[in-house]
């Protein structure tokens, strides 16, 4: 049976991994991006064959580069100075109206200057559709690079927020423009070294709508008077804050828009004073807002952002300013690049905005379109390596036009060659005297270019955001299948157990009726799964877990009390139990001779410890998203003196060391190995203490070398002692009883008994070592404030194990395993984790690492974030050592079966249920408002939790299998070899 269950489990895990990776691939597509920056090669027609990324041309000084670009582009830049004014959260509807109608009178009046520019055809406005997620940072990236990043970019760029892709600002900087930035500090995070002057304001205090904009405008007068800059970025956050507070129709809105209009007027009049008309003012918004003022999703209200160009090249004799002029937000990048004579960023998928190039000649216009097409063609070639322009032209040149091209590739070919051919012919007719003919040729080639550009842009953007529905469905089917496999394995297990129970434990009072805790666990899991469908419950998941866990332990309390009240009945059980314990190992040696009354007392005590500790952990971090500002203990401590935190850390370290020492005392064998492990543990504890105190002395220095070396010493010692313990522990125990009970070892039965003792003791030692070293590692890595919660989680683990081992019949085994898993999840949120990516502790991920390494710091980040669930999995190793495994048949596979199937299968099953149901939720919610802000980050956590479960289960399984294998090997050899005695003494 064991082999079959193991086979099913492995199959289920493999299926799950396959399904999960398929879903991730489908839901969060990682598009291939081109590295590096566009250079002079972007003014040449892309050649066929593989994209040569390696050829780096020597970096030229800025002014040379600028003249080179001007020469290659065959036209001078249209503007020299750029004022990029970002109004956070301004819907285009407020300025340009909707559906061809101007905005409401109130809104018109709130922006008088802008509206007069629009009416006077001095400005061109677009509804620039933003791609989800409609939050500031990705939108700014899209504007300056012309690329739509995937959601996973956020996750992958954790350590560095600096923007490394090709973008406008870097290109402008490269040709010698001087940049100044005022406003949202997101820009500074993206471009930390680019700006000559900067004043960043934080978007942290959403309640503030005045100060945040004043901090930008106060520099305006100075900057407008200064002539040294050529790119000025203004980012006003106030309007977004107004929206967050009062929604679209907030009373503050018109006032804020008047303020913005005033800024536009000031900047525009200052730029007019130059008389040279070399300044372009671009007013954009990064995203819109919903009726309630939120953003993040993909509704029209949120994606409807503004792009307004004010400058000489957009002026035209007549216009209709309130036409619904649709564009994409990414179109800003190529437009600005060509207006300023720089290469279009490599990953741009935007298309030139036509009205902005009014001042150019027809030939120059065609040239800009050609450059844009070449750039997009390069990007297409990166996506479809086989695609080649020359083949297209050769293949199609003579044949005439194919009416219905079949594949996308051929369609591209067709459109592109049509555009280039018409451009060629318009060039040929350039000299002709017939103006109308020339205009006609230009008209067709412009049309053809736009035909290609629009199609290619759409195709590329769909590549970035489209979700292949059938792929996702099949991924989910795989996960459901894996879930069913696991359920099948578990039900087999239960069937087998009930059979063996009827065989062996007929006297057991465990009846087949459902108990309260069992019913509750099933209901609780169901409720949890349902709660995953609500964004609020996902945001505030810590409440759910704490509530469920505490309720489960309260039910344990009730059951314990009930068992105590049963009085006479319980005595029988205890008597039976003690009979079974007779000669059985019991690592808590003291409870061995407990009277039933004392035992009940301990049972109550352990549960109360778990409950009270859980409540304290709950109060430690408020957590969640909506009420994160509420007072909690961690905020109190953050305000208090740092020495208090340090002393709490010290207390936790000492308590962990003391608990380990006590648990080793309970172990009856005291061989050299045990003492060695103990000493190394104390040494590690001292190292952690040293690290804590060292940190206190040098608070000013973020990274100092002594703490780094201490941390490294800790990693080294801990890993050596843990691996030594794992390898050695099965070799040191079994001989023990041959020394103490020589009289009883006359026949074969005691030898078997010895075996089971050996297993229990060595697994106990290994598990305890795992847990305490893990605890010390967490104390080293976690924020100082988390020291006490960590200690409490450790206490909860130990008390739960003690409770379950004190009375093995009160709760069924699967209930115990699931209770421990619940504790792990409650603790996960108790350590301050939330379902938003913002709460991940990045600072701790660099402890003991001197040079930057993504893999190492990623592993540390994972260890920090999943500290609590992994601690409970490691505790599960201790828990399996407490199991009653002395059975008549002492086959090692049977022992293994009893020990590990349940603790391995159940976490896998629960995780699989959570993962599968949440995947379905995510698929259903893919068009939900909060899919990018709430559901997707949570999905990353769910995936990481799956990895965490695999790691935990793997550890449990390998430890138990190794121990059993070694002991069987030894039992098969000489039952009691003299070597054993030597090793013990």
């Amino acid at each position: 049976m064991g082999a079959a269950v193991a086979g099913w489990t492995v199959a289920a895990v493999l299926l799950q991994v396959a399904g999960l990776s398929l879903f991730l691939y489908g839901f969060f597509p990682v598009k291939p991006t081109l590295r590096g920056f566009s250079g002079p090669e972007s003014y040449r027609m892309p050649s066929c064959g593989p994209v040569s990324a390696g050829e780096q041309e020597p970096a030229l000084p800025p002014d040379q580069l600028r003249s080179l670009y001007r020469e290659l582009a065959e036209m001078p830049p249209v503007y020299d100075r750029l004022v990029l004014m970002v109004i956070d959260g301004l819907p285009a509807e407020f300025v340009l109206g909707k559906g061809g109608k101007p905005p409401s009178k109130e809104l018109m009046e709130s922006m008088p200057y802008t509206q007069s520019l629009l009416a006077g055809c001095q400005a061109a406005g677009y509804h620039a559709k933003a791609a989800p997620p409609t939050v500031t940072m990705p939108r700014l990236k899209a504007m300056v690079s012309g690329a739509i990043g995937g959601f996973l970019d956020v996750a992958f760029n954790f350590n560095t927020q600096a923007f490394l892709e090709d973008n406008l600002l870097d290109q402008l900087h490269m040709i010698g423009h001087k940049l100044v930035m005022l406003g949202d500090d997101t820009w500074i995070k993206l471009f930390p070294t680019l700006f000559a002057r900067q004043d960043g304001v934080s978007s942290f205090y959403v309640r503030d709508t005045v100060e945040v904009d004043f901090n930008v405008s106060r520099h305006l007068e100075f900057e407008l008077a200064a002539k040294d800059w050529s790119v000025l970025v203004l980012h006003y956050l106030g309007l977004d804050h107004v929206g967050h507070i009062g929604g679209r129709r907030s009373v503050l809105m018109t006032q804020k828009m008047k303020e913005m209009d005033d800024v536009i007027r000031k900047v525009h009049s200052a730029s007019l004073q130059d008389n040279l008309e070399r300044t372009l003012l671009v007013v954009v918004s990064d995203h819109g807002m919903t009726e309630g003022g939120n953003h993040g999703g993909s509704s029209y209200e949120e994606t409807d952002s503004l792009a307004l160009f004010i400058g000489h090249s957009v002026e035209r004799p007549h216009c209709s300013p309130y036409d619904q002029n649709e564009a994409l937000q990414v179109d800003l990048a190529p437009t600005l690049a060509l207006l300023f004579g720089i290469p279009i960023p490599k990953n741009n998928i935007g298309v030139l905005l036509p009205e902005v190039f009014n001042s150019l000649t027809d030939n120059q216009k065609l040239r800009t379109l050609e450059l844009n097409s070449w750039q997009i063609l390069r990007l297409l070639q990166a996506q479809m390596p086989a695609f080649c322009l020359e083949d297209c032209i050769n293949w199609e040149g003579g044949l005439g036009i194919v009416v219905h091209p079949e594949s996308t590739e051929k369609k591209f070919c067709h459109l592109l060659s049509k555009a280039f051919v018409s451009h060629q012919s318009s060039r040929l007719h350039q000299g002709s005297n017939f103006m109308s003919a020339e205009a006609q040729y230009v008209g067709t080639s412009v049309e053809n270019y736009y035909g290609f550009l629009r199609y290619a842009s759409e195709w590329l953007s769909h590549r970035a955001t489209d979700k292949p529905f059938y792929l996702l469905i099949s991924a989910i089917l795989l996960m459901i299948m894996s879930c069913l496999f696991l359920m099948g394995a578990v039900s087999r297990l239960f069937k087998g157990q009930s059979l063996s129970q009827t065989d062996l434990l007929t006297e057991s009072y465990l009846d087949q009726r459902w108990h309260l805790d069992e019913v509750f666990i099933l209901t609780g899991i169901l409720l949890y799964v349902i709660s995953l469908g609500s964004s609020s419950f996902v945001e505030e998941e810590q409440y759910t877990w704490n509530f469920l866990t505490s309720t489960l332990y309260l039910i344990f309390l009730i059951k314990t009390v009930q068992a105590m009240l049963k009085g006479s009945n319980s005595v029988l059980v205890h008597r039976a139990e003690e009979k079974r314990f007779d000669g059985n190992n019991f690592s808590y040696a003291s409870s061995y001779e407990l009277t039933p009354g004392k035992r009940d007392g301990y049972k109550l005590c352990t549960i109360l410890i778990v409950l009270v500790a859980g409540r304290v952990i709950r109060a430690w971090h408020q957590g969640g998203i909506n009420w994160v500002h509420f007072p909690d203990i961690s905020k109190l401590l953050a305000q208090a003196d740092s020495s208090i935190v340090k002393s709490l850390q010290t207390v936790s370290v000492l308590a962990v060391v003391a608990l380990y020492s006590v648990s080793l005392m309970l172990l009856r064998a005291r061989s050299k190995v045990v003492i060695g492990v103990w000493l190394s543990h104390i040494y590690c504890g001292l190292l952690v203490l040293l690290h804590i105190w060292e940190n206190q002395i040098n608070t000013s220095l973020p990274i100092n070398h002594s703490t780094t070396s201490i941390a490294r010493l800790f990693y080294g010692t801990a890993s050596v002692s843990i691996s030594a313990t794992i390898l050695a522990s099965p070799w040191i125990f079994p001989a023990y009883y041959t020394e103490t009970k020589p009289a009883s070892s006359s026949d074969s039965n005691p030898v078997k008994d010895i075996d089971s003792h050996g297993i229990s003791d060595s697994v106990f030692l290994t598990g305890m070592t795992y847990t305490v070293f893990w605890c010390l590692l967490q104390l080293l890595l976690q924020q100082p404030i988390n020291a006490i919660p960590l200690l409490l989680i450790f206490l909860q683990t130990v008390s739960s194990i003690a409770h379950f081992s004190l009375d093995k019949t009160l709760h069924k085994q699967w209930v115990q395993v699931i209770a421990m898993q619940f504790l792990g999840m409650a603790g996960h949120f108790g350590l301050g984790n939330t379902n938003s990516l913002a709460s991940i502790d990045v600072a701790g991920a660099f402890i003991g690492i001197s040079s930057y390494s993504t893999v190492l710091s990623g592993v540390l980040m994972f260890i920090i974030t999943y500290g609590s669930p992994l601690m409970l999995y490691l505790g599960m190793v201790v828990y399996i050592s407490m199991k009653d495994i002395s059975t008549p048949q002492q086959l090692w596979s049977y022992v293994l079966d009893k020990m590990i199937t349940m603790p391995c299968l159940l976490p896998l099953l629960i995780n699989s249920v959570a993962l599968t149901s949440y995947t379905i939720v995510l698929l259903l919610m893919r068009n939900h408002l909060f899919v990018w802000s709430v559901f997707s980050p949570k999905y990353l956590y769910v995936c990481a939790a799956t990895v965490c479960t695999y790691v935990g289960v793997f550890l449990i399984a390998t430890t138990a299998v190794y121990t059993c294998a070694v002991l069987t090997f030894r039992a098969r050899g000489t039952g009691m070899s003299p070597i054993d005695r030597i090793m013990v003494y």
Partner: protein
Amino acid sequence: MREAASPPGGSASNPSRPHQPPPGASEDRPAGGRSRVTPPQLQPQRACLNVPNRSRAMASVTEISAFTAAAAHVLCFAGLAAAHSLAGRGALVSDPARALRLLVVCEAPVVIAVFSYLRRDPKSCSFFKAAARGLIGLPVGAFLNAFGAIVLGAPVGIKYWMVTIYWSLLMSLFTFVPAACVFGASKIDWQNVLSHSIYFTPTEVENYMISAPCHGAVLGAWLGAWPMPLDWERPWQEWPICVTYGAVAGHLVGMAMSPVLIAVHKRRVRAKAD
């Protein structure tokens, strides 16, 4: 196993005295050890024989009919309704402390009086003694309920103290006090109150009368806490308003259920007798 030996609080779950062995658990018990007893869920009738003074009382107690239980519950409901009408509509949301105080003040005398009258051992125990049991049980039950609520995440800030106290007193009236008045310190009965097995196995009539409203109140309060973390920003999401609503609703459902359960039980017993 007389009442004097162990007060109600100690027999239920007294966290302050965890080390004391319960009298029934040790092997040299004075009373319980006389006869070997099977688990009470399986054979409740024999379990009752265990306690001599109770078996005497049995004859008079089993007379409780569905009608009596319904009448008792109607009286309790009247107490709640009176408090509600005194407090006025929506008082729980606008001023939870006052509304809860009114509920406790109106409900306490009714509950104690009604259930002391229905005490299970009227021969050996006077009405006033039962009422005194109820009065002692009130703070003890309140403490236990407050402990449960706080462990489950009820806020402990100073501004919540008053409402928490009133709420736990009310919960005590729903759960602990009736049992204290009727059962005193009889362990088996307390164990039955904690158990959910009475719904599946036939048991005594009082168990239905006491347990169904008690379980209903606890379950209702538990379910009532679920909307609290939602970001609807409604005033009733505050502690303990929705929990109180849930508890009262659950209690009322339980009160409505218990006469039905008793009637069903009687019919079953009659059918068996036939």
